[in-house]
């Protein structure tokens, strides 16, 4: 009858989402009139459990099993913990690793799964909110089931604070190593390259709205005229138009410039994860409904191919022929 939330860590550190899932879990537990329990699997579980001993957490189950994430271990451990604790709601992080085990866990336990949830409400049935069509609309779903699994979007709930009085219990999972056919052999960091965009005061950042590689000189000229650094959303890097070290976002760099000028960028959640900490955000986008306007401070709803040349001229730059 509880809410069981699974936390996440990497290379010895708890990830932010572990504290956010406590907040989401507390909210859900109070909607359901029940208690929040946490699972910590792998790594320095005792230290992690101490740090997650936060206000509103009932019990923390620690599963001492390996240093790093392995989806086989997680799947088996959660399956067994689930059988023992019989929670109503299984709450998992919608992270890259979360997506590597949540669907498998839900499949094994025959639970309905809703991913990337941004809101929970009500008791029976539970109503969850998520985004669709790149954030242009929100949808709500009723989950009419005795128990279910949901993954929560990172950075959607604030990190939980306040010391708690949780019971910390070691849980002995019986892991069948033979059933695990995926082995993590190491980690690799994406190399630095020529510039560090996270050091820049002003970023001119471009997205798919630039349309073609041939148009890149236009924004380069703007960055030059402003004395700014050029960065981009992911598709520009995927296409090989700019190197990987220019990418802003979840799988790129986190930047906090004084001014971030987003040009032809829609503002997908994975992009916003990398730039929402900018002091001032300016968006240039033809679509007034683009999610980027939700976090922008200033906006120009117009065609970048009209606005950017004017802007270059306003700073005395030469507009390239594109």
């Amino acid at each position, binding site marked *: 009858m509880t809410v069981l939330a699974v936390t996440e860590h990497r290379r010895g550190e708890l990830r932010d989402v572990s504290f956010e899932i406590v907040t989401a879990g507390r909210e859900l537990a109070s909607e359901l009139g029940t208690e929040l329990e946490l699972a910590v699997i792998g790594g320095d579980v005792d230290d992690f459990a101490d740090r997650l001993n936060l206000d509103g957490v009932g019990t923390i189950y620690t599963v001492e099993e390996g240093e790093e994430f392995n989806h086989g271990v997680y799947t088996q451990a959660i399956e067994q913990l689930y059988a023992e604790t019989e929670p109503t709601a299984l709450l998992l992080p919608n992270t890259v690793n979360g997506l590597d085990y949540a669907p498998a866990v839900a499949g094994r336990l025959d639970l309905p799964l809703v*991913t990337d949830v941004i809101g929970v409400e009500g008791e029976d049935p539970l109503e969850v909110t998520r985004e669709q069509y790149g954030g242009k*609309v929100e*949808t709500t779903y009723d989950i009419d089931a005795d128990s279910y699994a949901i993954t929560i979007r990172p950075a959607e709930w604030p990190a939980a604070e306040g010391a708690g009085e949780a019971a910390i219990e070691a849980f002995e999972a019986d892991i069948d190593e033979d059933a695990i056919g995926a082995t993590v052999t190491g980690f690799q960091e994406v190399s630095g390259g020529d510039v560090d965009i996270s050091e820049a005061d002003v970023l001119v950042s471009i997205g798919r709205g630039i349309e073609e590689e041939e148009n890149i000189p236009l924004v380069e000229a703007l960055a030059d005229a402003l004395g700014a650094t050029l960065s981009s959303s992911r598709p520009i890097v995927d296409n090989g138009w700019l190197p990987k070290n220019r990418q802003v976002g979840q*799988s790129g760099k986190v930047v906090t410039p004084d001014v971030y000028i987003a040009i032809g960028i829609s503002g997908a959640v994975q992009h916003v994860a990398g730039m929402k900490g900018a002091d001032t955000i300016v968006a240039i986008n033809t679509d007034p409904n683009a999610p980027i306007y939700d976090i922008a401070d200033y906006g*120009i709803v117009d065609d970048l191919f009209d606005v950017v040349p004017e802007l270059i001229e306003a700073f005395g730059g030469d507009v390239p022929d594109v």
Partner: protein
Amino acid sequence: MKILVTVKEVAEVDDEFGISGLDIDASDLEYNLNEWDDYAVEEAVQLSEERDGVEVVTVTIGPERSEETIRMALAKGADRALRVWDDTLEDAQYLDVSTKADIITTVAEAEEPDLVLTGVQAGDDSNGATGVAVAERLDYEWAAVVNALDLSDDVASVHRELEGGIEELTDVELPAVLTIQTGINEPRYASLRGIRQAQRKPLETSSLEEIGLDESVVETPVERTDMYEPESESDAVIWEGDAEETASELAQFLRDKGVVEG
């Protein structure tokens, strides 16, 4: 070796759109090959070009309209295509992860591929869950969010793209399902010759019954109850006027802020 690739036709929404009932007006939607699947198709086709005896089969859950998208995958080099659709699927309110995973699993059980490639997510629903759900049902190994792949006879050595510019190196035993991330390769454009050849490649359509499932596969305890435009959280100041005017507003702002020279 056989590679099964999931190919989804995704809906993209026009700048101006309306919502009727629980979905966006059909007239405000445009359909395209899912961006992530484009990379999955390319990866499969490259593997088939690098070695002998690799067959690339695509599977799609989608209406007749999606055949255009499927032909595109065939034109890029897939060998044949399977499409599952019927009135039950057409009439369903929406297809959730478990319905899609059950259908793809059933197709995969008949095809017995060594490798299944899916996109990390579909651009419209963004569930990000179907690939791993299929792996679990098939009892295959898997890896989610793969941005590099090196295949040997019985192991796929992959990079999983984690957050913050870190990649996890993982060895995955075959058979396996890999969910493919954008940027793993450079998807080709279909050549004219490819497009012509695609017309002659087999594209087989089956109903749920024909693949051995019944209507109950669309039943889900998860019911969509509403769709709406989110209340704008925006308190952005929108500069009005033509491009010259708005550009000079922005220029003035940047000068006032003291962040630019000139």
